[in-house]
């Protein structure tokens, strides 16, 4: 699975994307964000702000943390958008 990051989240994690193998116990989107929070200080600095991090699965916005993500190809994490 590919994870992609944008804006200050990309800068904080010092990478724009990564390929990962999910741990077996990570099934839902909520499981994923909880797991991300355990991956080190930089990840914790991002993922402890749950109300700030926005998520897209395969380029569709999602906010239902119970969604099954095991078949997702690409999951993106980014702050609220500021275009226009």
């Amino acid at each position: 699975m590919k994870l992609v990051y944008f804006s200050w989240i990309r800068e904080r994690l010092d990478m724009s994307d990564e390929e990962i193998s999910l741990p077996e116990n990570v099934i839902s989107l909520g499981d994923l964000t909880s797991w991300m929070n355990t991956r080190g200080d930089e990840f914790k600095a991002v993922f402890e702000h749950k109300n700030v991090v926005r998520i897209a699965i395969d380029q569709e916005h999602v906010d239902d943390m119970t969604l099954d993500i095991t078949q997702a190809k690409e999951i993106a994490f980014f702050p609220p958008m500021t275009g226009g």
Partner: protein
Amino acid sequence: MTVSPHVKINVKIQTDDFDLNIEIDKLKYHNKNIGAIVSFVGLCRDESDSLSALEIEHYPGMAERQIKNISSDAIHKFSLFGITAIHRFGKIKTGENIVLVIASAPHRQAAFDGANYVMDFLKTSAPFWKKEHFKDGVSGKWVDAKDADNTALDKWKH
């Protein structure tokens, strides 16, 4: 969703600038029933002479998809004939264009509403992020999302 041949949606995400007149002409000649065209151009302002440029990041693929969806919603909601939406990315200096939205319709009210609607949703749900570069050489403050942009959406909830 069926899109009539009389309807045109043109979305581009690009680094280059755009030419308003050329884009209006492209939208104008496909349908002789167009009676009104409204265009909006968003610029990079200098924030009281403190800003030198904005750097705009986007999510390729999703950015196009979101703006196409928003444009399609606007076409159906206001019975428009066309929407052109162009958003630039990369480094944009003060005074330069950032975004263009053009709406065409039989009458002016639909064209005004259509352009307004697309801009309101583009600001809050199209994946773009702006970083400010200041004249004093201090690089790098990501622009925060504004509550006003979210409350702007309330007017379309009826």
